[in-house]
């Protein structure tokens, strides 16, 4: 494949990006309003009231349909570069979500988030280490699965793989398992949340703790309640997400130390080195936005400025999620198997169910902010 440079690279983005924008425009302008009035099975707005469909879920579904049906499993060359901007949009959206908080509100909810997440992260890591040994799994794969199930799914697996010398083929199976689990929980969790009448705070806390792949936490929260504002599911879920993302380098360090402890020729790793290499610096942007919001530089809550900012945010997320959907190849997910599937399913289901029980028992419906 010929490598593109400079302006050619920018121009190459346009067709795919324009396609994503057009899709989102159609979904938000025509499909979503139609869904609220359409009469299906004798009920007006059945798609919204019963299936809880909104533009976020539609965006992901549209992306998945493009990839799996329209394009038969492969994003075509003309759209490839444009779709690659998907991560840029989601990262930008996450940073802008920082504007939903003030430093005080983060401090209030952050304590609960850190306690819950750290308990579940290290609990899951220890479970996978034990269960993986029981399944006679390769040690390096145990390390990857422990990171993947413990903290952030695919991101943690990717961050840990080179450090523990895992086999790429096994990692591919692990990714399929974790991603498959994340996607399934993305569609199922809103139903369970509505069924159990969880408040936005409880829902954010639950999916933020229980969903295996953090990439789907935001989408799940937005699917539950598409409103982007303080006090909504996405505002709470994102705090959980940020804590998880920040903990990746620490988890990678912990697992790397565990892995090389038993190896003859230990590899020299330092926590500082791992943080320098792996810390996702876009999170700094999130905190910068929180600081600006705390200083009142982004407009007052309820103002037209904040409203416009959130509309921009919702479009940015929508674009990112169409791309995310298009990176999901159902056939690849179906290939998940072997030890990663067994361990991933056991850890994932335990975490998902246990997190729900803990949230129902210990997290109040009323949020701290």
């Amino acid at each position, binding site marked *: 494949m010929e490598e593109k440079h400079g302006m050619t690279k920018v121009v190459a983005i346009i067709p795919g990006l324009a396609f994503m924008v057009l899709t989102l425009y159609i979904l938000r302008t025509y499909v979503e309003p139609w869904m609220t009035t359409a009469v299906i099975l004798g009920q007006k707005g059945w798609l919204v009231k019963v299936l809880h469909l909104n533009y976020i879920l539609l965006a992901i579904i549209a992306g998945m349909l493009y990839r799996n049906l329209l394009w038969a499993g492969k994003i075509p060359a003309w759209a490839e570069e444009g779709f690659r901007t*998907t991560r840029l949009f989601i990262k930008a959206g996450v940073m802008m979500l920082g504007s939903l908080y003030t430093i005080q509100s983060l401090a209030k909810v952050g304590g609960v988030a850190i306690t819950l997440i750290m308990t579940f992260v290290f609990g899951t890591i220890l479970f996978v280490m034990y269960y993986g040994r029981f399944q006679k799994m390769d040690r390096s794969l145990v390390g990857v699965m422990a990171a993947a199930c413990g903290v952030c799914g695919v991101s943690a697996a990717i961050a840990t793989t080179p450090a523990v*010398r895992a*086999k790429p*083929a096994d990692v591919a199976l692990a990714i399929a398992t974790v991603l498959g689990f994340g996607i399934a929980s993305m569609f199922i969790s809103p139903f369970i949340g509505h069924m159990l009448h969880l408040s936005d705070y409880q829902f954010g806390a639950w999916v933020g703790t229980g969903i295996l792949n953090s990439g789907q936490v935001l989408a799940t929260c937005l699917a539950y309640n598409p409103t982007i504002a303080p006090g909504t599911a996405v505002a709470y879920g994102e705090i959980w997400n940020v804590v998880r993302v920040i903990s*990746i380098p620490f988890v990678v360090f912990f697992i790397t130390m565990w892995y090389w402890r038993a190896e003859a020729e230990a590899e020299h790793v330092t926590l500082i080195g791992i943080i320098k290499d792996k810390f996702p610096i876009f999170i700094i942007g999130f905190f910068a936005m929180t600081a600006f919001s705390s200083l009142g530089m982004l407009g007052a809550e309820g103002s037209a400025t904040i409203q416009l900012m959130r509309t921009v945010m919702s479009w940015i997320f929508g674009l990112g999620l169409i791309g995310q959907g298009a990176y999901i190849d159902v056939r690849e997910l179906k290939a998940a198997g072997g030890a990663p599937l067994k361990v991933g399913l056991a850890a994932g289901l335990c975490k998902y169910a246990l997190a729900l029980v803990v949230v129902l028992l210990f997290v109040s419906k009323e949020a701290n902010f």
Partner: protein
Amino acid sequence: MKILLALDPSTDTMDEALRFATEKKADLTALFVLDSTWNDYTGHDWLSGSGSRADFLEYARDAEITSETDIIAKFRARCPSACEIKTATGRVTDEILLELTEGKYELLIMSHPFRRGLEMMRDAAGVILKQANCSVYLIRDNQSHRSASDVGDLLVASIAT
């Protein structure tokens, strides 16, 4: 007759291709494709920041290169001089189909399941059968039940040495 052998870790397929080519007095060309789709495979992962994904993709690429060296060495040991060996980089099935078209081959021989790079997660034979412009000879790969691919095994071996 021109035959293309799509290389993967299966030595049974290499042996069968060589036997068949000798029997038919055909020209055998072997093609090894380095899978460059790891980036797309992890494309949904937006949480990785900084060097994480770059490190991983480099690691996967190194594994591909190690695999290339080993698989080609295995094939060379079986067919020291008579066969041409080509390499390509890209999506494995696309590169095989491209070579079939450009080289005007009459037959493609490959393993099924085809364990080259991420094709272990996909249905390579299904894609090839739909689009190939020549006959396709699929050889059942009895080693495919192993969860760890040779790619990984070889990478670990190379690090150990």
